[in-house]
């Protein structure tokens, strides 16, 4: 029986004004998986991402991390729990007045690590994200992809068990996105870190996720293995996503991944 590392139970969020952003969300994340969460903008994805580590307190319901309900934790213990859940963001959110090394050191300073131990760990992480040569650079001089690598190194500093990626590739071009996704997959496989990917991009889910949940209109519309949900969508929301987003691109990738060209395929089916 695989370990369930993170659960949301009846999670709802409603802001002072307007309709609920999330309603009754139940998710079970298995340790070691890459779990995707997809939905159109406004579906409540980012709110859910922030509710998972209680950056945003749910209006009702709870999050269980390693079986512990986060709502029961005193502030100090909640800060500690968050250190076991790294997070990266669309806009990277690096400290602009700190060097690359300083950014990676930051979470370890927060956790009161000894300086020498922290520096050694930071260098190891920069090596992991292949930015060792940039440790003294400042974020403003880095490209988007490099900034996200720094953010990943920083999020991994305290060896979290879960890594939350909130639209982490949405500000990046396709090629850089591929690089970041490969790095995430590598982190997942080599370090066994559970990854939760929040995105509006189908391609991201298809490239690295094992399971996916579709968030639609504040609810989880569908949940299951990526292949199943994408090939046999059961709900209207899932069908809309699968059909609207990047069909041509996915077809192309499928063709290329079989070592064929578009012309060959077309001639085989007798179109050309």
């Amino acid at each position: 029986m695989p370990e369930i590392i993170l659960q949301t139970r009846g999670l709802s969020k409603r802001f002072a004004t307007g309709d609920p952003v999330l309603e009754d969300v139940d998710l079970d994340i298995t340790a070691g998986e890459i779990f995707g969460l997809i939905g159109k903008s406004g579906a409540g994805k980012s709110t859910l991402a922030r509710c998972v580590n209680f950056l945003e307190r749910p209006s009702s319901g709870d999050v269980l991390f390693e079986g512990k309900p986060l709502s029961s934790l005193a502030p100090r213990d909640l800060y500690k729990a968050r250190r076991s859940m790294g997070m990266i963001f669309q806009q990277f959110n690096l400290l602009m007045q700190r060097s690359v090394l300083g950014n990676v050191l930051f979470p370890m300073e927060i956790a009161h690590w000894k300086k020498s131990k922290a520096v050694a760990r930071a260098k190891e992480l920069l090596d992991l994200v292949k930015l060792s040569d940039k440790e003294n650079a400042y974020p403003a001089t880095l490209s988007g992809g490099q900034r996200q690598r720094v953010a990943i190194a920083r999020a991994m500093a305290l060896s979290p068990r879960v890594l939350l990626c909130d639209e982490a590739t949405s500000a990046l071009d396709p090629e850089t996105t591929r690089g970041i996704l490969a790095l995430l997959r590598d982190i997942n496989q080599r370090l066994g870190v559970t990854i939760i990917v929040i995105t509006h991009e189908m391609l991201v889910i298809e490239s690295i996720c094992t399971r996916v949940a579709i968030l639609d209109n504040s609810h989880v519309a569908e949940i299951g293995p990526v292949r199943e949900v994408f090939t046999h969508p059961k709900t209207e929301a899932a069908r809309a996503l699968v059909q609207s987003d990047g069909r041509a691109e996915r077809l192309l990738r499928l063709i290329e991944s079989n070592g064929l060209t578009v012309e060959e395929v077309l001639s085989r089916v007798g179109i050309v």
Partner: protein
Amino acid sequence: MSGLYEMLIKGIKETLYMTLWSTALAYALGLPLGVILVATDRGGLRPMRGLNAALGIIINIARSIPFLILLIAVIPLTRAIVGRMVGSTATIVPLTLSAAPFIARLVESSLKEVDAGVVQAARSMGASPMQIICKVLLPEARPSLLLGAAIAITTILGYSAMAGIVGGGGLGDIAIRYGYYRYQRDTMLITVALLVLIVQAFQEVGARAAKRIDRRI
């Protein structure tokens, strides 16, 4: 002539003495106030509506009292702290009190410029509100805080000259005593020119330092 020269040197020293001490003390009061304003604001690290509103009102009231009136109104306090009511040291008390709320607002606006996403990232790493203030807000706002300090110091310098009216010492005092009361126009012009130069120097140094330490370019 050497008498004038010595007097001006003494005036500069007194002006700098008043300005620098008042700025330092006003920051000792204003910086924490500014931090509290930001932290207790809606959506801040520790939202506290009542405290935030009360503090805001007190600061606004303090800022709207004309400096000359404050100068006279706090004489009993000045006497209690410094032991006298005239002179450069005595002027530091009203200068500090009048600058602190202004500095609180400067600090508040600098800290509010810090990207909310960075604060969110720090929270996601388990940083406490105090750690976020000390390790995120203040360091990230450093260039802007430094620019604010240049504004604060030059404003305080201008106010210190006003204290000349009640014998506060410094260049302002000289300008009023010689230039205004005794119609020595030259002395007044030299004094004013010196004040302009000092303000320029502070502003320039502050702006350059802010630019040099900023890593965002």
